[in-house]
């Protein structure tokens, strides 16, 4: 008698036989999708939680690597750099990668918990799991899985739903070679007239001023990248290459 439990063929037969159960039929067909919908809603919540855990885990592992490893070249197995295929957090890694497991756990996911697993992979170069990231020296990927027992969908034989969330954090060594250390100054870099500054590396302007970079006249600033914490202004026919990375993160303590 419970709507939603009717097999589709029985349901069709009733419609054919009488063709005159409008309320009955409509109620049944309306109720039927609610079961999976509630399960999917709950799984979406769990997936979002898993995404938080994997984001925090990947970021923490890379930051722990950065704070404990000072290698200038990135080679697997050399200088304490760990590269590994996807490996469970149970047992907990003894390397800096343990930080990824710790943060996944502090966000509610652990390999030792029932129905959950946290897996960490790492390597050098471009991460295979982050399309569009084409420049990287070292990366860590955290994957969080959980099997979620189903409530209403279990009636249809789906006892468990499986979900996964993945996050990758990568380190990209700085490409800058000129740092302008003026945290708040206006015109921290002021190029007026016809000066040329041509570099094969990047410029980092640490000022958060709205006119941290100012140019007037016909100056040329050519660098692999121009990072500015604040803003810029220029008049005349200033030649800036490449496009500026306006809004770069500030460097503390300078």
């Amino acid at each position, binding site marked *: 008698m419970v709507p939603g439990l009717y097999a589709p063929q029985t349901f069709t037969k009733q419609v054919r036989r009488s063709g*005159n159960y409008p309320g009955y039929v409509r109620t049944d067909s309306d109720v039927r999708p*609610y079961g999976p919908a509630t399960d999917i809603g709950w799984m979406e*919540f769990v997936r979002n939680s898993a995404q938080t855990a994997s984001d925090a885990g990947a970021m923490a592992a890379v930051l722990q690597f950065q704070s404990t490893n000072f290698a200038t070249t990135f080679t697997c197995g050399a200088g304490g750099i760990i590269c590994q295929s996807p490996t469970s957090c149970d047992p907990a890694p003894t390397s800096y990668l343990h*930080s990824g497991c710790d943060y996944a756990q502090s966000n509610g996911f652990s390999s030792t918990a029932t129905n959950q697993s946290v897996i960490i992979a790492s390597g050098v170069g471009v991460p295979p799991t982050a399309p569009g990231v084409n420049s990287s020296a070292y990366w860590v990927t955290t994957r969080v899985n959980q099997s979620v027992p189903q409530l209403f969908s279990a009636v249809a034989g789906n006892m468990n739903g499986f979900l996964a969330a993945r996050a990758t954090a990568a380190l990209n060594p700085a490409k800058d070679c000129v740092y302008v250390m003026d945290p708040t100054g206006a015109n921290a870099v002021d190029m007026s007239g016809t000066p040329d500054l041509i570099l094969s590396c990047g410029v980092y302007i640490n000022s958060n001023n709205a006119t941290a970079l100012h140019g007037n006249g016909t100056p040329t600033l050519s660098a692999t990248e121009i990072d500015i914490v604040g803003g810029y202004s220029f008049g005349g026919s200033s030649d800036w290459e490449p496009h500026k990375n306006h809004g770069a993160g500030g460097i503390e303590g300078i």
Partner: protein
Amino acid sequence: MLSKLKRRSREHGHAVIELSLMAPWLFFLMVGTLDFGFYAYAIIATQNAARVAVVQTARDSLTVASTTLACQYALTELSTLPNANSLATCDALPVIVAATSVVDADGATSSQVSVTYQTINMIPIPGLSGTLTLTRTAQMRLRQQP
């Protein structure tokens, strides 16, 4: 022809009895589903709010415990909820946000954001309150350690 009409009439009666017996269950099922749907949407939004807020507060030591910053991003995520779309502060229900600085097992500083959201009063189901208070917490290590 007459017997056909009689049979149809009997079937009509049968359907009415079935429907009247099932109606309370159907009603509570639909109300429960409606409530659960909103609660699910609310908890997803609350979880997203905590995640987005902690990504922002985990920037550096200036933002690590910035409840103001966390509130700003949490409210943006919660803006689709009916009782949170016009809020400007996060110090009382229906939305409470708190950002704190915590030290992890490695001695590094991390930011922890807690978002509490109280739903609107839904259709009450016997035995259940019409409102639900949800709290989600997220923690992330600071990208720039002090």
